C-alpha cells in the first residue's frame, strides 16, 4: 500500500503539488488524471523518490503477512518499476541489451538476467525484435520497449506515465492489454494518461488533479455522481402514438417527461431507481418501444466538468 500524506512541492512561487493525500492499495490500478501542468509528473517523481517533497510524506507499506510499517528507501526502490513518459533507453543498444542493462541495476545477473529480459520482451511483444537496435524501431515498438525496460525486474509497483502517447492503435491495444495483465498478476499500478477512455476501461480507482490539488477521487461511478444532478431515460417509440406525459410525471422521482417526435425522454432525480415503474407505464399506455437508452456521463464529461473547458498553456 502506498500512503501519500499532505505532500507539497513548490518551484519558486509556483505550487506544483499542494497538500495532496492519497492511498493506493495493493493490486489497485490507480489512474491519475489531470490537464497539462496539473502536477501529475511532480507527484509521480515524489512517489518514486526522484524529487524530495517540501512537506508531507510518501510511505510504502509492506502488505506481506506478518509485516507492518513503512519500508526503507532501498526496499522501496527494488519494488518500483518506472515507465517514464519520454522514451528512456539507449538508441544504440539492441532491445535485449537495453532491457538487460536496466534489469541488471536491480542485481539480476547471468541466466536469471537473460530469462527476465526475454520474458519482458515477450510481454511487450518484442521477442522477435530483441536483437534489433532500438533506433530501428517504430514508434509503437519503442513505447513497448520502454515498458519492457521498466518491468523486467518484476516490480510490485509499476508506474506508467502516459505510456500510449503518439502510437498506432495496434501498439496501444497491446499496451492496454499488457497493463491489464500486470493487474491480473497482482501488481499495483499507477497510470497517468490524457486518454479518458483508457482510464475508464482500465482503472479501478481514479484521482483527478488540477493546479496541484486532488479535486476528485474515487471509483468511476463515484466520480460520475459528482457531476450528475439528474438521470434520464429515453424511449424510442415505433409510432407517433399519443402519450400521457402527466402519468409519467406522477411516477416517484420523475421531474420531467417530454415527447419529441418518436423520442420520449423522462428525467428523474439522481438515485430515483424508477426504471421498473417507467417501463410499466409504457406498457400500460400500450406504447411500442424499439429502443431504450439511459444517459450516463462519461469520465471525459466528469473530467471537463471538474477541470473546465478552457485551454491550458
Amino acid at each position, binding site marked *: 500500500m502506498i500512503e501519500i500524506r499532505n505532500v507539497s512541492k513548490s518551484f519558486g512561487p509556483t505550487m506544483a503539488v499542494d497538500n495532496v493525500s492519497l492511498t493506493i492499495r495493493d493490486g489497485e490500478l490507480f489512474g491519475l488524471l489531470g490537464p497539462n501542468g496539473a502536477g501529475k509528473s511532480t507527484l509521480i517523481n515524489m512517489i518514486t*523518490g526522484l524529487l524530495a517533497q517540501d512537506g508531507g510524506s510518501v510511505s510504502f507499506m509492506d502488505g506481506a503477512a506478518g509485516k507492518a510499517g513503512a519500508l526503507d528507501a532501498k526496499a522501496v*526502490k527494488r519494488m518500483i518499476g518506472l515507465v517514464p513518459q519520454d*522514451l*528512456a*533507453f539507449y538508441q544504440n*543498444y539492441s532491445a535485449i541489451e537495453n532491457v538487460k542493462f*536496466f534489469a541488471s*541495476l536491480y542485481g539480476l545477473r547471468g541466466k536469471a538476467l537473460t530469462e527476465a529480459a526475454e520474458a519482458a520482451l515477450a510481454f511487450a511483444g518484442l521477442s522477435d525484435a530483441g536483437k534489433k537496435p532500438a533506433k530501428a524501431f517504430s514508434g509503437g515498438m519503442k513505447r513497448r520497449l520502454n515498458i519492457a525496460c521498466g518491468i523486467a525486474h518484476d516490480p510490485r509497483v509499476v508506474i506508467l506515465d502516459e505510456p500510449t502517447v503518439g502510437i498506432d492503435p495496434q501498439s496501444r491495444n497491446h499496451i492496454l492489454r499488457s497493463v491489464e495483465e500486470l493487474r491480473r498478476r497482482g501488481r499495483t499500478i499507477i497510470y497517468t494518461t490524457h486518454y479518458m477512455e483508457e482510464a475508464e476501461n482500465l482503472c479501478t480507482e481514479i484521482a483527478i488533479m488540477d493546479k496541484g490539488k486532488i479535486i476528485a477521487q474515487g471509483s468511476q461511478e463515484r466520480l460520475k455522481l459528482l457531476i450528475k444532478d439528474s438521470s434520464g431515460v429515453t424511449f424510442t417509440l415505433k409510432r407517433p402514438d399519443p402519450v400521457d406525459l402527466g402519468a409519467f410525471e406522477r411516477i416517484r422521482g420523475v421531474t420531467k417527461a417530454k415527447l419529441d417526435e418518436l423520442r420520449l425522454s423522462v428525467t428523474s432525480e439522481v438515485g430515483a431507481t424508477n426504471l421498473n415503474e417507467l417501463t410499466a407505464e409504457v406498457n400500460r399506455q400500450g406504447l411500442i418501444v424499439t429502443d431504450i437508452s439511459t444517459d450516463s456521463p462519461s469520465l471525459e464529461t466528469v473530467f471537463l466538468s471538474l477541470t473546465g473547458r478552457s485551454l491550458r498553456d
Partner: protein
Amino acid sequence: MVTLLFARHQLRLQLRSPGILALFVVGPLFIIFVFGQAFTAIFAAGNQGFSAMQYFGVTLLTMAVFQGSFLASWAVFKEKRSNAEARLGVAPIGRVSATLGAFLGSWLSIAAIGCVVMALGSVFLSIDYGDRPWLSALLVCVEALLASSLGVSLAVVFGQERAANGVLNAIVPLLVFIGGGYTIIPDSGLLHELSRFSPIRWINLAMLDLALPDTGEYVAAALSFSLAASAALMSIACLRSWRKR
C-alpha cells in the same frame, strides 16, 4: 559491482559510436602529420635537437589524450540525453558508484585511444617514444586518468552539458597551450612560468625526455602531478554525487 557495470556500459556505448572513436584516433595523427610537415624548416633552423614531427608527435598526442575529457563528460550526460536518468534515479544503485563507473569506463577508452595513436604514430609517422615505450604508455594512461576525472568532475559539478563543455572548451586548449602543445615553451618569461601550472607541460617534458636523452627525469613529477590532480577532481565529483543522491 555497479561501478564495473557502468564502466562496461560506458565502453560498450562508445564502441557503438565508431565515428567518434575514429575521429579521436585519426584526427590527432592527421594534425601531427600537418604540424610536423609545416614546422620542419622552423625546427631545423632553430636547432632544437629534435624534429617538428618528433615534438608534435609527443605534444599533440598528449593534447589528444587530454581532449578525451570530452568523452568523459559525455559519459555522464549520456544518461540525461537518452532520458535514462529517471530510470537510474529510481533504481537501487548509488550515484557515487555510477559516477565512478563513468570515470572508469572513460579512462579505459581514453587510455586505449592514446595508446593506439601512439602506436600508429610510431609506425606510420616514425615518431620515437624512446627505448622504454611502456613508460610513455604509462604516462599516456595516467594522463587519461586526469582527462577522465576532469570531464566527469565538471559534468557532475555543473550538471548542465553546455556549461560543463563550455568550461572544458576553455580549460583544455589553455592547459595544452601553456603546456607547450602548440609551441615550444621558452626557458624564461611569462609562458615559462605559467607552464608550471599545466599538468600537460610535465607530461610533455617527461615524454620528450624519454624519447630523446631518456633520463626519465620528469616521469615521477608528471605522474605525481597527474595522479594528485585526478584524485582531487574525483574526490570533488564523488562528494558532489553523494550529496545529490
